[in-house]
C-alpha cells in the first residue's frame, strides 16, 4: 500500500505531526494575535469590537516608546557583554588551556532560568545580599530604576556568556594553526594577529552568534519578570513583559496584541538578517 505513495507524498506524510503542531501552536496563534490587534477585546469578557488602528495609535502616542527604549537598552547590554566575555574566554581556552575548563564554565548557562533569577535576587538583596556585603553598602539594586536595569543585564549576561563561549570556541577551533604561525613568523604581534587573522576567520560565526543572542534577548522574559516584574516604575519593562502584563494582568488583549504587532515587525527585520546569514 505504501508503494502507491510517491516519495514526495511519503515525505509529507512524515511531516504531518510536526506541521500540525506548528500550525496549532505557532502559526494560528500568531495570525490570530495580529488580527486581535485591531479589536477591543478583553481576556475575561466575551465579545469584541473592531477599532481599526486605534490600539496602535494609543501605543504610538505613548506606551510604545519607553518599552522600545528599555528593550533596546536591555538587548544591547545583554548581548554585547556576553559577547565580549565569551570571546575573551574562548580565546583564552583556545590558547592551550585544559579542556575540562570549558565544561566548568557551562554551569551558569545550564541551570534553569528561574534558578538564575532566584540566585541573583539573593545576591542583589538589599538587606542580606552578598553584593552589598562585599561592598559594605545597603543599596537596593533592584529598587532603583538605573541599577535595576544594570542588575537585569548583569544577570542575563551571567546566564548567556557560556553559550557565546561555546559558539566562538567552535569557530576558533576550526581556524588553521598555520595561519597564526605564519603571521607570527612575519613579525605580527598578538594584537595584530588577532585583528588580521582571527577576526576575519571568525566573522561568520561571530555574526550569527551575536545576532541570535540579540534576537533572543529582544524577546527575553524569564529573568526580567522574576527579578523586577518590569519595575521599578516600568524601568525594566521590555516588550515581552509589557505584552504579557497587558494581556494577563490588565486583561486588555487588544492593546497587548497591538504592542505585539509592533514588536513582531521589529523582530521580522532581525529574522530576515538571521535567515540570510544562516544561508550564507
Amino acid at each position, binding site marked *: 500500500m505504501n508503494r502507491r505513495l510517491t516519495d514526495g507524498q511519503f515525505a509529507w506524510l512524515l511531516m504531518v505531526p510536526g506541521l500540525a503542531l506548528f500550525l496549532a501552536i505557532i502559526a494560528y496563534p500568531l495570525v490570530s494575535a495580529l488580527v486581535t490587534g485591531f479589536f477591543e477585546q478583553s481576556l475575561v469578557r466575551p465579545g469584541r469590537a473592531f477599532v481599526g488602528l486605534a490600539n496602535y495609535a494609543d501605543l504610538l502616542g505613548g506606551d510604545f516608546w519607553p518599552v522600545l527604549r528599555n528593550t533596546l537598552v536591555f538587548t544591547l547590554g545583554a548581548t554585547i557583554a556576553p559577547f565580549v566575555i565569551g570571546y575573551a574566554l574562548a580565546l583564552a581556552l583556545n590558547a592551550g588551556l585544559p579542556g575540562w575548563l570549558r565544561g566548568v564554565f557551562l554551569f551558569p548557562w545550564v541551570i534553569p532560568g528561574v534558578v538564575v533569577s532566584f540566585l541573583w535576587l539573593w545576591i542583589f538583596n538589599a538587606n542580606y545580599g552578598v553584593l552589598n556585603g562585599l561592598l559594605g553598602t545597603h543599596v537596593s539594586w533592584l529598587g532603583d530604576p538605573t541599577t535595576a536595569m544594570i542588575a537585569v543585564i548583569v544577570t542575563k549576561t551571567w546566564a548567556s556568556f557560556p553559550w557565546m563561549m561555546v559558539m566562538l570556541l567552535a569557530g576558533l577551533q576550526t581556524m588553521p594553526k598555520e595561519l597564526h604561525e605564519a603571521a607570527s613568523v612575519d613579525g605580527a604581534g598578538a594584537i595584530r594577529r588577532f585583528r588580521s587573522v582571527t577576526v576575519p576567520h571568525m566573522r561568520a560565526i561571530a555574526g550569527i552568534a551575536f545576532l541570535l543572542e540579540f534576537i533572543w534577548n529582544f524577546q527575553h522574559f524569564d529573568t526580567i519578570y522574576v527579578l523586577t516584574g518590569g519595575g521599578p516604575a516600568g524601568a525594566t519593562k521590555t516588550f515581552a513583559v509589557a505584552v504579557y502584563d497587558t494581556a494577563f494582568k490588565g486583561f486588555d488583549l487588544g492593546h497587548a496584541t497591538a504592542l505585539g504587532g509592533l514588536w513582531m515587525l521589529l523582530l521580522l527585520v532581525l*529574522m530576515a538578517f538571521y535567515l540570510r546569514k544562516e544561508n550564507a
Partner: protein
Amino acid sequence: MTATLSRSVPIARAPRRRRPRSRAAAWAAVAVIGFFGLAPIYWLVVTAFTPDERAFTFPPSLVPTEITFDHFARLAQNEQLFGYLVNSVVVSVVTAFLSVLVSAYMAYAFSKFRYRGRKSLMHLVLASQLFPQALLLVTLYAVFSASGLLGSYGALILSFTTFTLPLCVWMLKGIFDTVPSTLMEAAAIDGASRWRTLHQIALPLAAPGLVAAGLFAFVRAWNDFIFALTLTDPDRQTLPPGLVHTYLGEFQTAWPDLMAASFVVSLPVIAAFMFLQRYLVGGLTAGAVKG
C-alpha cells in the same frame, strides 16, 4: 592575504617566545571570568547549606562556618513542592518522547527525500524558534481554553514539543544525513517498505542522536517558565512557576530554602548536559536549547 613567509625573520624564535606570555594572559582571563561565572554558583551552594540565623546576618560570612541539611529536609517534607516535582517530571518526560517521535519523522523527511516546498519548510521550522512566545501565549491561551486543554498537562506538552522542534529536527537531520543512502536502497531492493526502512534501519542507526534530542527536549520542558506560569492550574504547575509562587510571594523570602530548592531543581539538567556536551556544538549552531 594575511601572512606570507618572509625569510628575514628567524623561524624558530617567534613562536617559542610568545607561548609563556600568552598562556599567562589566558589564565588571567580565565581567573577573572571564572570569578564572575562561578562565585554565584558557590554562593548558591553555600546558602543552601547555611542555617537560617547565619544566612540572615549582615555582612554575610563568605565561607560557611556551620553546615545544615535542614533546608533539604524541609524540602522533602513539603507536599506541595512534591506535587510540582511530579508535574515537572511527567511533562518533561512525555515532551521528550513526543519530541523525538515528531522531530525524527520530520528530520527524516527533510534528510532523505527531495520534494517541492522542502527548502521553505526547513526555513520555517528554523525560524519558528524566533517568534516571541509572550505574544503567542496571548492567543494560545484562548486556543487552549476553547479546546478544553487549558490547565492540563496536554497544553504544556503540546507547546513544549512544538518549541523543541527546530533544534531537534535540525540535530536529527544532521544525523540522518550521515546514514548512507545506499543502505536504504539496499533495503528497498530487498523488498522492505519505506516505513520498515525508516523504523528498522534509519532509526536504530540514529539512536544516539535520538537520545540527545530527547534530553534536549526534556531540558527545554524542565526549564520553561512562562508557559507553565500561564497555561496551567495551580495543581498542574511545574517547578519553575511553582517555586516562584511558593517562595517569592512571602513577606520575607526563605532564601536558604529557596537556594536548596534551586540546587535540587538544577541537578537533573546538569546531569543531562554532562551527557550532552559532545552534541552541544553541532546542535547549538543549528539553533538553540534555551528560548
